[in-house]
């Protein structure tokens, strides 16, 4: 059974680890989680980013956060990637598989996947 003692061990392991916080330099992945996003399938997209960023050891460089409706509901699930000194990238009509690809090619490899961005996809 999962116990609070196990959680205590996690705490001890975590307390010295550097975690990317809001306001720190780094890449921010922002997933739209308003009604429109949730209904369109944002929850598995968010999960894929949270899991993928951790599995790839990117948690010190990339933060995954949630936001409300940004007004382009017909393109949900929408994911915005903010990198210091670069233009924002808006990925649209996302799913967990595409999220995996974005982690691999964009977050790790530094190459924007143009075909998933808002300019390339029709609503």
């Amino acid at each position, binding site marked *: 059974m*999962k116990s609070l003692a196990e959680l205590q061990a*996690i705490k001890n392991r975590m307390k010295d680890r550097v975690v990317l916080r809001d306001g720190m330099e780094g890449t921010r992945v922002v997933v739209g989680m308003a009604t429109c996003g949730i*209904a369109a399938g944002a929850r598995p997209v*968010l999960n894929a980013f949270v899991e993928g960023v951790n599995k790839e050891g990117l948690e010190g460089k990339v933060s995954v*956060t949630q936001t409300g409706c940004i007004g382009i509901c017909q393109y949900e699930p929408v994911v915005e990637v903010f990198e210091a000194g670069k233009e924002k990238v808006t990925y649209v009509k996302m799913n967990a598989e595409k999220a995996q690809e974005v982690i691999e090619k964009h977050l790790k490899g530094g190459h924007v996947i143009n075909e998933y961005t808002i300019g390339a996809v029709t609503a």
Partner: protein
Amino acid sequence: MKELSLNILDVAENSVKAGASLTQILLTEQDDTLTIEIVDDGCGMSADVVRSVTDPFYTTRTTRKVGLGIPLLKLACEQTGGNLAISSVTQEEDPVNHGTHVTATFHTDHIDFTPLGDVSSSILTLIQGHPERDFLFRHQIDGNVVELDTRNLREVLEDVPLNSYDVMEWVRGYLQEQYETLSEDSVHSGEE
């Protein structure tokens, strides 16, 4: 919404936006009814606003003038013959005991009942997005209980954020174990 767990996530996000420090998500399954309650200690709504939130053309958002969260939940329960009730106390009315209480009841044996789906995933999504807020989740199924209270976790974790990956994995396992223990045919713990 494909699963009621998504409606729960959506409506609980409203509680967070209302500034709730604690949001309770209480599910009760008894015989052929499911009751979903979302109770928060946020800023509350005036009687006028409570009347209008079930109207799909009402929203607090400024980007556009329709809000569908509560109307979608209302539709989901009413199409099973159930109903939705909202009560709320504003901070001005009562500076201590304010907040909103949403209750949705469903008839689970109705053909138009939407499956509950992966509630654990919705709870994890709330914790991931709002690690500084507290959530009490309690799912009662015919007298058995699955429960998670982030206040207890916070006490152990101190300044380690609740949305640390290892903590979230622990929470996922913690809920999963409880669901598995309580029903071998585990119809309620469907993973995504």
